């Protein structure tokens, strides 16, 4: 048994230039004693939800996701004595979760504007963290196959330019991979906007890859709104990565005056261990 509050020394919050990405692999988390420690971290409402899931596998996955969010945020030790169990969350008008800091009016200095976003596949759960910028994260399994025909799906949901880009790829496997990566970029953007799926329907904007000058700091990915330009903001930047050799991930956050995104990736088993995987510039 170990105390959760002093397991590790506090981690510095991401600077304005940084994005932190934490991820866990449910397959590596097997012991019932650890899973029940995770249950102990949850709010009553979260426990109700977890216990309402009938499949053990899905229940475990949902549990690990909550444990990941709680332990990750508390790793930054914002305010003294913050434990994973004590964190409170609320949802914004569109259902996007946010942290509520207790008595934030009494804080001097005020609590940092920490943003986080969670993405969930059955085999990997990721949590992105930023300060002062909304963030969207999406992960998908690299090997994931589509039940629908890719181009039919793209024609239904993506923009014309994106359909053209995908149609031009003759190798079906490469097409499938590029489709999945494009999906994660679009989903990360919509999640960063925080307005829900209908706030930015996928066919109202194009993700465009500019032909890159290798010396340029620009990541080369930009948003091109197709309608109501004032509704869809474009001062966002993206990072694309592969996690664990098994997943594509996309991160979207506000632009940083032209500097490309610096991402620090950590793989973690909540309450047990964490490991910096890479720092990506």
């Amino acid at each position, binding site marked *: 048994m170990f105390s959760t509050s002093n397991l590790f020394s506090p981690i510095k919050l991401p600077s304005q230039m940084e994005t932190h990405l934490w991820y866990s692999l449910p397959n590596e988390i097997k012991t019932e004693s650890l899973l029940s420690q995770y249950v102990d971290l949850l709010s009553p*409402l979260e426990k109700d939800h977890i216990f309402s899931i*009938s*499949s053990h596998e899905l229940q475990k996955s949902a549990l690990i996701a909550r444990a990941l969010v709680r332990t990750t945020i508390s790793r930054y030790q914002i305010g003294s004595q913050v434990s994973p169990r004590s964190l409170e969350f609320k949802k914004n008008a569109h259902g996007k979760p946010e942290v509520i800091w207790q008595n934030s009016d009494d804080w001097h200095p005020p609590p940092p504007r920490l943003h986080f976003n*969670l993405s969930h596949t059955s085999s990997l759960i990721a949590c992105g963290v930023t300060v002062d910028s909304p963030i969207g994260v999406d992960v998908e399994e690299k090997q994931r196959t*589509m039940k629908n025909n890719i181009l039919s799906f793209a024609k239904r949901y993506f923009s014309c330019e994106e359909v053209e880009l995908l149609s031009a790829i003759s190798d079906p496997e490469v097409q499938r991979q590029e489709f999945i990566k494009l999906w994660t970029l679009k989903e990360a953007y919509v999640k960063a906007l925080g307005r829900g799926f209908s706030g930015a329907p996928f066919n109202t904007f194009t993700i465009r890859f500019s032909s890159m000058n290798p010396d340029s700091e620009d990541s080369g990915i930009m948003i091109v709104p197709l309608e109501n330009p004032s509704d869809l903001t474009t001062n966002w930047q993206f990072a694309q990565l592969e996690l664990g050799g098994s997943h594509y991930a996309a991160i979207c956050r506000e632009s940083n005056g032209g500097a490309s995104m610096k991402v620090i990736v950590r793989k973690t088993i909540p309450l047990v261990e964490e490991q910096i995987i890479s720092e990506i510039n």
Partner: protein
Amino acid sequence: MASFTGASSSALISPRQCLAPTKISGLKLVSFSNSRSNLPLSFRRLQVSCAAKPETVEKVCDIVRKQLALKDDISVSGESKFAALGADSLDTVEIVMGLEEAFGITVEEESAQTIATVQDAADLIEKLCEKSA
């Protein structure tokens, strides 16, 4: 009141702004407060809608099962929440597309966002089918 629908903040699924429905032998009573309404809060609008036919619910369950490749021991019913069945964002949109093709309808993003359970999907399908009939 928004019930906790899942750990992942999927852009697609968001909690509905309405109270949990009560089933009374085939009829579903849904009451909700419209925050944009000028009516006083005490004047709540009641909408009585017929729950979707069991065949529609079953067809939706089949499509969901297929999309998510669910093992036989996982039960899917009208009350099943997509997020709780392990559907990620791409799964959910694939399911919606599968429903569009199976039922010959088009589901706009605004409507798709309100679907949290199999029953929601079935009800929406019947509503859209009625419209085009």
